[in-house]
């Protein structure tokens, strides 16, 4: 019974934890501009993250080593350090976006300017990272994030023309008035939103924090293979809500308030209250994940003690890195740079950094020295190889497309 509960909780956490500020903004933005014509990019991203999160979870369970531990080992100190710098930059950018997201969500709930919420959010994040148990931190944020299911309810209440939505999704093409470069630019943003590298840093490090062993591989797989696709469905619901309510009114999404409007239209105040709760929980949870991931990646590269399973003073430099990153992230938002813009850039740079994370995972998951009999099977390798190629293409195309389309304008 306890085991069933554990698995169920893990799945719920994975669903609620899947969506972050990047998914919220990217899906709503794309839904309002392209309808569901880019649903395939989200689906592709979800398959990719399932595939590689499973591998990283399995590696962590079998070897006790988290992702960045292995990056240096397989790429060497030089390339590993370059990788660390790039990954840290992207994760830090995402961290800033999440902190901004918390503040924006609280602004919607209070109409107090979001900049005033930034220090509050920063302090709350630090207190949680400093004092709250890892499993509590992970599960509470994830389960509260489930409030975003309200987007699914809203979609159903909006009585959309389902056949038209399905039609858009299955015969993808760029709508009239939108060029192909813009179309693919946003495809990459959605792909990057689903596959953000911090998710595997966090997932694999979390496995080590919770002291997974080979026995826990089944649990980890359930979380990934059930939780993430349901989280992806949530992303699609957000996109569809925007497609149904915002697209006909020619509204383009550039604020979090616009993301929630379809829920208000469909369900009124109570529904919107759930949506705001979901925004706060999803961004707060993701801020914790990205903040910890900054510390995880640095500490794992240098071999320092890391993690919340020891007292903070026993992982001093890890805690220091997290704290410094938190200050930098909050400081970035306080420069009054638009958090939604930061989010959009974080998605594109995530896409650029994807191969740095996913290549070493694929290699280690095949290393009999580490994995013994638990190496990848044929299917995982076939899909892994295909995705590696897709990731490489997305990574190379991201910056040129961003410049060519002036970041999607």
């Amino acid at each position, binding site marked *: 019974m306890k085991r069933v509960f554990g698995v169920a909780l893990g799945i719920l956490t994975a669903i609620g934890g899947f969506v972050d500020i990047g998914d919220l903004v990217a899906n709503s933005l794309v839904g309002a501009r392209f309808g569901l014509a880019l649903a395939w990019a989200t689906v592709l991203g979800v398959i990719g993250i399932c595939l590689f999160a499973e591998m990283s979870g399995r590696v962590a369970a079998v070897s006790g080593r988290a992702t960045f531990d292995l990056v240096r080992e397989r790429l060497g100190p030089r390339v590993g350090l370059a990788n660390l710098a790039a990954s840290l930059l992207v994760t830090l950018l995402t961290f800033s976006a999440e902190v901004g997201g918390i503040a924006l969500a609280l602004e919607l709930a209070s109409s107090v300017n979001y900049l005033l919420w930034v220090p509050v959010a920063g302090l709350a994040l630090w207190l949680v990272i400093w004092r709250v148990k890892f499993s509590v931190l992970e599960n509470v944020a994830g389960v509260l994030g489930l409030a975003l299911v309200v987007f699914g309810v809203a979609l159903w209440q909006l009585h959309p023309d389902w056949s038209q939505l399905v039609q858009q999704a299955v015969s993808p093409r760029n709508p009239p008035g939108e060029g192909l470069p813009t179309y693919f630019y946003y495809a990459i943003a959605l792909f990057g939103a689903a596959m953000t590298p911090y998710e595997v840093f966090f997932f694999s490090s979390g496995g080590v924090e919770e002291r997974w062993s080979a026995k826990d591989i089944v649990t980890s797989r359930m979380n990934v293979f059930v939780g993430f696709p349901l989280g992806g469905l949530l992303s699609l619901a957000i996109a569809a809500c925007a497609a149904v309510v915002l697209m006909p009114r020619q509204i383009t999404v550039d604020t979090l308030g616009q993301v929630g409007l379809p829920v208000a239209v469909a369900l009124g105040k109570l529904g919107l209250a759930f949506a705001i709760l979901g925004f706060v929980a999803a961004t707060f949870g993701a801020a914790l994940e990205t903040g910890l991931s900054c510390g995880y990646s640095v500490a794992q590269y240098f071999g320092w003690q890391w993690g919340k399973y020891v007292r903070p003073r026993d992982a001093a430099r890890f805690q220091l890195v997290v704290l410094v990153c938190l200050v930098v992230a909050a400081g970035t938002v306080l420069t009054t740079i638009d958090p939604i813009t930061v989010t959009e850039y974080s998605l594109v740079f995530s896409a650029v950094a994807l191969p740095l994370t996913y290549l070493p995972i694929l290699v280690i998951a095949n290393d009999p020295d*580490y994995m013994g009999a638990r190496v990848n099977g044929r299917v995982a390798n076939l899909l892994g190889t295909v995705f590696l190629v897709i990731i490489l293409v997305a990574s190379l195309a991201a910056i040129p497309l961003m410049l060519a389309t002036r970041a999607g304008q």
Partner: protein
Amino acid sequence: MTTVDIHLQLLDRQVLDRNGLLVCKVDDIELHEGPDGVPFVTAILVGPRASGPRLGGRLGRWLTALAWRLAEPPGDAPPRIPFGRVTAVHSAVDVDRTRAELAVDPLEGWVERHVIGRLPGSGHAG
């Protein structure tokens, strides 16, 4: 007969102390010639004075020089863990001493004493 490839199987691996706490990475490996003239592994070398030269380039040189100057006493010999302390090599390298006994990483202690340890609640596990 077991063979071990140093580059592939030892360098950059995580070192764990006798309690399973994380100590450092294998930043480099020290070898000495035995009486028969064949070199054998004598120690794990730790810290920027070991990893800096491997990093190479301007950054590597700068890091090595900085660590050299900050060290007590100054010098180019990095902290080392004698290879006799190693009890197992798997996805990590296990040694039979505690982090405090090994004392290969003075900076960690400094941050603990002067920054993190001073914040309230630093002694409670999450």
